[in-house]
């Protein structure tokens, strides 16, 4: 029986996708996991992978076309399998979506053909075997169960498989921002973007930049920002990095060490990763999901490092590197971009001394980091060189006060001087 390849649901609110391009042709041989087609939602572009080994048959949907979630894209006939185009069901119900893609089918007629006898595919269960907990976790994360390799008998998907797949994905896949607003923030100085053509002429913004434009404007207009700036002494951090270079592969970067310190410190300053709720409440978050602003050709993207406060350095470094790499390559998934509770933005490597960032609402704070400078400090009757980084904390004044922010920066400085405090 040929496997049916459908438009996956990549987020809870996703209803349709654009076909960007086909990566295979009718009759192509594919292996399970091979990318077959690239699709695009308002948040992400995504490569749909073959869900079985075999030959592509009945490919449908043209590049540029909009298709509903659950619509059939193609069938993958088992090697040697005689395959005949299933007849469209009379009722012309759209693709048989996982949760029953509804009649949006009309939107995309060609793709929308219903599978002939889809009974077994229909009742939301499809043929995937998965525990209830795995189903819930996959739905929460917007993951396609079919895409998750199950470790149980007959490929049964357990919760652990979903969680693993989620972690893998976070770093891998990418897409533009959800959080654009996040941080692009750096005040006016939006980081990435190479200079746009000068003078006259217009350029339409990429999707990422457009979302970023709207979010930063909204945040800057509605969130009462205030800023706290201080120099953070980083001699110990740089020594630590030197030491770890020899011991860790990949070695942690300055940003990664700062991310670790910030995430762990935030845990003791819950207000800074809380959010303001209209009506006079704040909502705190149990863990820290740390957004890391990354400049890409498409615009500013802020992938989110989930559970950052609980990750050991060895765990954090590769995940963060992968996130940033995928951000640059446009390979982030929706879940890589959502759920952040606090953001850091480092423009130090681009030579910036210090800057003020725009808060990535609904988060309550963002930390803008500048380059490493060597400054003299008067100590014991003599000038001594000190290496520092300027850190500017932007805070939503509805959630936290200056003293809260100052205490956080002080704790952060303490940690940077004495990493043992993280023990």
């Amino acid at each position, binding site marked *: 029986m040929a496997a049916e390849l459908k438009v996956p649901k990549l987020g809870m609110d996703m209803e349709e996708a654009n076909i960007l391009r086909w990566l295979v042709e009718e009759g192509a041989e594919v292996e399970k996991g091979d990318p077959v087609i690239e699709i695009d939602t308002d948040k992400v572009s995504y490569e749909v992978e073959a869900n079985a080994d075999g030959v592509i048959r009945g490919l449908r949907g043209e590049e540029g076309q909009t298709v509903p979630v659950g619509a059939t894209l193609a069938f993958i006939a088992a090697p040697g399998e005689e395959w005949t185009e299933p007849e469209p069901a009379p009722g012309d119900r759209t693709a048989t979506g996982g949760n029953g893609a509804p009649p949006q089918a009309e939107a995309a007629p060609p793709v929308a053909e219903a599978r002939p006898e889809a009974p077994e595919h229909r009742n939301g269960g499809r043929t995937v075997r998965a*525990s209830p907990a795995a189903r819930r976790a996959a739905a929460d994360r917007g993951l396609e169960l079919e895409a998750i390799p199950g470790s149980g008998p007959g490929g049964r998907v357990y919760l652990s498989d979903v969680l693993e797949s989620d972690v893998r994905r976070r770093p891998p896949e990418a897409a533009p921002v959800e959080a654009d607003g996040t941080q692009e923030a750096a005040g006016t100085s939006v980081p990435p973007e190479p200079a746009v053509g000068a003078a006259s002429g217009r350029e339409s913004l990429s999707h990422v930049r457009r979302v970023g434009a709207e979010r930063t404007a909204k945040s800057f207009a509605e969130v009462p920002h205030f800023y706290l700036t201080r120099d953070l002494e980083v001699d110990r951090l740089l020594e630590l990095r030197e030491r770890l270079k020899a011991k860790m592969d990949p070695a942690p970067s300055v940003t990664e060490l700062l991310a670790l310190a910030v995430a762990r410190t935030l845990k003791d300053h819950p207000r800074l990763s809380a959010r303001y709720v209209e009506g006079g409440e704040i909502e705190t978050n149990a863990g820290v999901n740390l957004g890391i602003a990354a400049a890409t050709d498409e615009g500013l993207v802020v992938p989110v490092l989930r559970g950052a406060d609980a990750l050991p350095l060895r765990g954090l470094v590769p995940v963060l590197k992968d996130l940033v790499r995928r951000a640059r390559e446009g390979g982030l998934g929706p879940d890589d971009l959502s759920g952040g509770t606090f953001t850091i933005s480092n423009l130090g490597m681009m030579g910036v001394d210090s800057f003020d960032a725009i808060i990535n609402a609904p988060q309550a704070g963002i930390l803008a980091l500048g380059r490493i400078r060597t400054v003299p400090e008067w100590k014991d009757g003599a000038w001594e060189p000190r290496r520092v980084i300027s850190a500017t904390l932007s805070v939503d004044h509805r959630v936290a006060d200056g003293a809260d922010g100052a205490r956080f920066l002080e704790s952060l400085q303490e940690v940077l001087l004495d990493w043992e405090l993280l023990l």
Partner: protein
Amino acid sequence: MPRGETTYREALREAMVGAMRENHEVFLMGEDVGVYGGAFGVSRGMVEEFGEERVVDTPISEAGYVGLCTGAALMGMRPIAELQFSDFITHCMDQLVNQAAKIRYMFGGEGRVAMVVRTPGGAGTGAAAQHSQSLEAWFVHVPGLKVVMPSTPYDAKGMLLSAIDDDNTVLFYEHKLLYNKKGEVPEEPYRVPIGEARVSREGGDVTIVTAGLMHHYALEAAAALADGGVEAEVVDLRTLSPMDDGAVRRSVEKTGKLVVVEEDVKTAGWGAEVVSRVVEGSSFYALDRAPARVAGADVPIPYNRDLEAHVRPTPERVVEATRALLDARAGVYA
């Protein structure tokens, strides 16, 4: 004040003695509860303190004296009826199910049957098919009755005092193998609420729900599982009706796995109710494995000791069932 450890039997006696000293409406009635001190010695010495009017020996007539206690309760007394073996409760079904459980409801709350029926259930003593059953699930099925099954001396005393205070009929299940169990028991009176389960061991890998003697088996199993790196959370229900399914669901939300350990026979046992309550509604989606039940075999309890041991749950069986459930290969249902 710290004192030596107290047995489950002594804890029950302390509760009864304390309640009878405090409240003249409380009395004890049953076969051999007086001079003999009760079939399992729970009421030893009580007739000497309270006299035959308040520690009343009866003929072999369970239906009669449970009915008598029901009537006394209606008149405002707080009787404690003891049945020597819980198997004999079959004689009292009409009194309990049609009278005690119904009167308060049928008379719009005008009458109440504040009675406690204490009785030991369970096998493991070689007492054969008519003296070894675990029939508590029958009463879980009857609205209007409360059913408790404490596992520790501490809970035995605290819950018996709560049961005596309660304006409803409470079936108080003891276990022959629990009477000598020792534990810390405060000398002063205290109450353990009816209807609240207790997490007696925390763990994140699997939830073991149990009650009564089986609670101790579950703890032994949990210790053995921990040696293999599996951290079981043990929930002692303590009360079977009203059942604290919230505590169970909270634990299952954490672990995603459920094992129920009960001594009564598996078919239509109260463990089935525990599983149902987890599977109904949102906690279903917390489950990462199919739930498992470790229960008595669906047979009369054999007299032969080896056969008896064969049909009862054991800590080893709990370990086995839990390991099977956690096994990655689990889930192949033929």
